[in-house]
């Protein structure tokens, strides 16, 4: 099985076989995270730069741990510490990073398409850790790994994704990947947060959380940006919680063994009630744990990605 991607820009560009290989590789790496010596020499001597031009705690931490457990040297630059605030262009920033000869750049950027921009201009591998409202491939892959662990397969699963669909990169990455893996995806959210043509990415669109959650195997709640309250997209968080929040009553509509997911960080009492967030069906911390393994798999696979594998 060949993995011949130099970059991970989005799940849009990955085949079903690619995704399967990433998940299988991640399963193998998961075991390392439970050892007392949580380190293998796989990427010894490689340099990984985590360039986070937008705030993120857990994704950056997850990529950093993933790199370190593979023995790579990981260096972080963040939005405030980097030159972006000094008016430097992304191309100049990229050129300056390039001459330090990194092997992989992991980039989080507020502008959709920024990782593509870098991939076109740099010799090293580029991994998209979230670009604007476009894609967040490692999140979708860890979501799917979590689903596979709990459900044994993805084919035929009914997956409900609820929240701010329009501004979510997690949704787009999940839509591409889940459809390739054979899932039946249902979306729900307020009318102001449902972007045009999203159904063409392979989803059934609802404006009622109950319709989406009904008989679902997986219920994925999205984080609502608190600052959207009072703007034109949302009247109040209270109203959002009432109509689009996941609570025990709504969750009862899903299959009895349905799992509840959230990419974090959660707004308890807004998109998800504490009872559900801490309830027996939640697999939210499992997602975070899988994040390290999936990111190890991505770092490993792009490192040898240009050579054909027998």
């Amino acid at each position, binding site marked *: *099985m060949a*993995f011949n991607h130099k970059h991970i820009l989005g799940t849009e560009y990955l085949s079903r076989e690619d995704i399967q*290989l990433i998940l*299988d*590789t991640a*399963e*193998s*790496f998961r*075991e*390392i995270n439970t*050892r007392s*010596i949580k*380190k*293998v*020499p*796989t*990427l010894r001597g490689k340099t990984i730069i985590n360039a986070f031009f937008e705030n993120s705690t857990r994704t950056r931490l997850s990529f950093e741990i993933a790199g370190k457990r*593979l023995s790579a040297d990981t260096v972080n630059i963040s939005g405030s510490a980097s030159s972006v605030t000094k008016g430097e262009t992304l191309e100049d920033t990229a050129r300056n990073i390039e001459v330090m000869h990194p092997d992989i750049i992991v980039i989080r950027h507020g502008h959709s398409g920024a990782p593509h921009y870098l991939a076109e201009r740099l010799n090293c591998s580029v991994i998209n850790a979230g670009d604007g409202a476009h894609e967040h491939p490692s999140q979708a892959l860890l979501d799917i790994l979590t689903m596979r662990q709990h459900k044994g397969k993805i084919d035929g699963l009914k997956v409900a994704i609820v929240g701010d669909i329009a501004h979510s990169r997690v949704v787009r990455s999940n839509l591409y990947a889940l459809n390739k893996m054979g899932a039946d995806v249902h979306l729900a959210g307020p009318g102001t947060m449902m972007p045009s043509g999203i159904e063409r990415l392979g989803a059934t669109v609802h404006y009622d959380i109950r319709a989406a959650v009904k008989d679902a195997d997986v219920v994925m709640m999205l984080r609502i940006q608190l600052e959207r309250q009072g703007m034109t997209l949302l009247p109040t968080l209270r109203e959002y919680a009432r109509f689009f929040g996941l609570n025990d009553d709504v969750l009862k509509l899903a299959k009895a063994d349905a799992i509840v997911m959230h990419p974090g960080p959660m707004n308890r009492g807004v998109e998800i009630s504490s009872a559900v967030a801490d309830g027996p069906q939640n697999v939210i911390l499992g997602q975070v744990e899988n994040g390290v393994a999936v990111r190890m798999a991505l770092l*490993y*696979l*792009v*490192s*040898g*990605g*240009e*050579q*054909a*594998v*027998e």
Partner: protein
Amino acid sequence: MAEQGTLILDKAGVRRALTRIAHEIIERNKGVENVALVGIRSGGDDLAKLLARQIAAIENIEVPLGTIDITMYRDDLDSRGSKPIGKTEIPFSLDDMKIVLVDDVLFTGRTIRAAMDALMDLGRPRAIQLSVLIDRGHRELPIRPDFVGRNLPTAINEKIDVVFDGERNPLEVRLIKS
């Protein structure tokens, strides 16, 4: 494929070699107390399973059995690319155990180097011994097997093919000239 090349060991030959190795392991370790077998994926894990069965037949003791995947410890990522990573399963503590690493063919020694590094990351064995079905020479590292099924001088461009059946039992060993 199996039709090609020269037959080195047939099914009975493989079985005899493994039986002898089983005896040697018992003899060297004065029994099998604190002895465990770890097979290297892929090929060595299947042989380790057979060896464990042979030892059990002789000593009436089931030795602990594990498998190890050395992909994460390879030193040729840049030249050979990212290979799929297999499972490492060692369902016992390595600490203070005498580990017999089992592989099918010993060649440059780089796989064994990687396997030893992998074992060291998983625990602190008292000793590591090496058992191989075929030693074909051409060592690139100072590594020497403790138990050998068959020494077979080869040319560098030849290939040793250990053929398994559908149940992953060894059928025969062939030397293939390229």
